[in-house]
């Protein structure tokens, strides 16, 4: 019997979108579409076993080998730098990591910049590269609130459409890095399920290329 590939998908809209891509290239698992509370879904014929996990936990499942491959946002990969292979940009879930501030904000380089963020490592690397001294404020959610209440000068956060920022009179002042969903693999699994993982990656790459070509046309 063929060994199954264990795939960790991020719960939520992105995960569903990504599952459709897997499904389209032959790694379908009909039971996943059923409305139930199951956590693990298997299709032996297609050689896959899916499970839904919290998006920020995907890298942990993959790094520790509970999943052979998974799909994680580039933001998570940059923030936690897990020891995994990053095999493919799935070109979906596109957004960007950016610095945002209240509209009309003027940076005073002579003062320590107060930065509120969920992504401490990304912010540290970004401002470290500029040699800028910052006061990092780690928040777990509602980051946009920080500059409004004067808790911070700027925020480093994910920006998708910019609607939340606009509604709160904030604007992007600098883009740090574009973000999208990436296919990642455990380094040991890549050795022992090499042919299966390579084939899956190739099929997904073709699917992504087709989609990209379609979008450009």
């Amino acid at each position, binding site marked *: 019997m063929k060994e199954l590939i264990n795939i960790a998908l991020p719960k939520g809209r992105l995960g569903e979108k990504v599952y459709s891509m897997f499904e389209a290239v032959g790694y379908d698992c009909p039971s996943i579409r059923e409305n139930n509370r199951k956590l693990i879904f298997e299709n032996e014929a297609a050689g896959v076993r899916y499970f839904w996990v919290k998006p920020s936990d995907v890298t942990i499942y993959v790094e520790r*080998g509970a999943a052979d491959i998974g799909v994680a946002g580039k933001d998570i990969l940059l923030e936690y730098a*897990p020891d995994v*292979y990053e095999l493919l*940009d799935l070109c979906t879930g596109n957004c960007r990591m950016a610095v945002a501030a209240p509209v009309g904000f003027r940076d005073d380089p002579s003062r320590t910049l107060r930065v509120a963020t969920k992504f401490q490592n990304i912010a540290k690397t970004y401002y470290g590269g500029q040699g800028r001294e910052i006061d990092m404020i780690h928040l777990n959610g509602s980051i946009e609130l920080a500059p409004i209440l004067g808790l911070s000068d700027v925020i480093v956060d994910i920006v998708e459409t910019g609607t939340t920022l606009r509604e709160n009179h904030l604007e992007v002042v600098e883009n740090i890095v574009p973000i999208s969903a990436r296919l990642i693999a455990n380094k*040991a699994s890549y*050795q022992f399920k090499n042919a299966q993982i390579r084939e899956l990656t190739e099929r997904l790459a073709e699917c992504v290329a087709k989609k990209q070509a379609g979008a450009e046309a």
Partner: protein
Amino acid sequence: MNQTDVFKPEERVAFALRSLYRSYGYSQFRMSKFEEYDFYVRNKSFLVSDNIITFTDTNGKLMALKPDVTLSIVRNTKDGESGTRKVYYHENVYRPARGSRTYREIAQVGLECIGNVDDYAIAETLTLAERSLAEISPRHALGIAHLGILAELIRRAGYPEESHSELFRMIGEKNLGELKLRSPEFGVSVDHAEKLFAVLSGTGEVQSTLELLASLYGDEAWKSDVSALRRVLNVLPMECVRLDFSVVGDRNYYNGIVFHGYVDGVPDRVLSGGQYDKLMQKLGKTSGAIGFAVYLDGIERLTPSANDYDVDTVVLYGENTALSDVAGTMQKLTRAGKRAIAVRELPASMVGQELIRL
């Protein structure tokens, strides 16, 4: 009771590896558990983790619990000795396990070959690395790269020096997408880097990768590098070996051959090594060196699930049971290879398969 019942898998592997290395003439290297902190700080990036446990010695010096063995061995090796020194070690090191934030005591077995590192020495080290993995599990894989050849591919593609750290990160991640996307940013067109991409995207199967490498450039220098690599790899069992250029050690320390080993069932690499002439130079030595370490902490995962019983037989004796009866029963049972326990009352958490009341 046989050996495998007594030894934990990591202990069994450690003994097997020590005996393997001894059979190849390696002698055991023993060292102190502590070194001066300053020594490690200067060579932080050679270490798996830069977190080190420190304490102040009685003379006020800041000391460290050894986070690594290779550095200590290199430091304590006399330079300029004639011949090649071959040593192995079995030591505990203290550092956070990968992906964890808490310190652990980690058993490490490994070997170092210091002196004149010729093609045979490299081939022997790779052979022992592969055999070490085979001792751990029949399903194993050794990924080998050659940093010299990779650096040459990168140089010929035209990547500037300042792009190298980013470049090596992407290669280490097998992140070809980003590499292709960002190459123009480094002043290299995707067409120009085609040969590098071809090597990185290959299956890693040794013979076909060697053929691909040989076909890339026609000059003598390149051909000689590739055939040197072929000579060394030819002694290895091909089914367990892959030429995998994503194996990139720290370029400040390693040069030439670098390799990582995996066994099925352990999610992280269990073996890592390479030629580290650059580390030797940094520590003021002129000799060449190659070696590897086997991390035994991951191997405990290979244990089959715990037995259903703590012991085979529980011998329960009463207040009036004759001591000689208990002793006799225990001797009989243990001589028959049973694992037995003699108690007046069984501890609540203990489960035995069979019960004998005396």
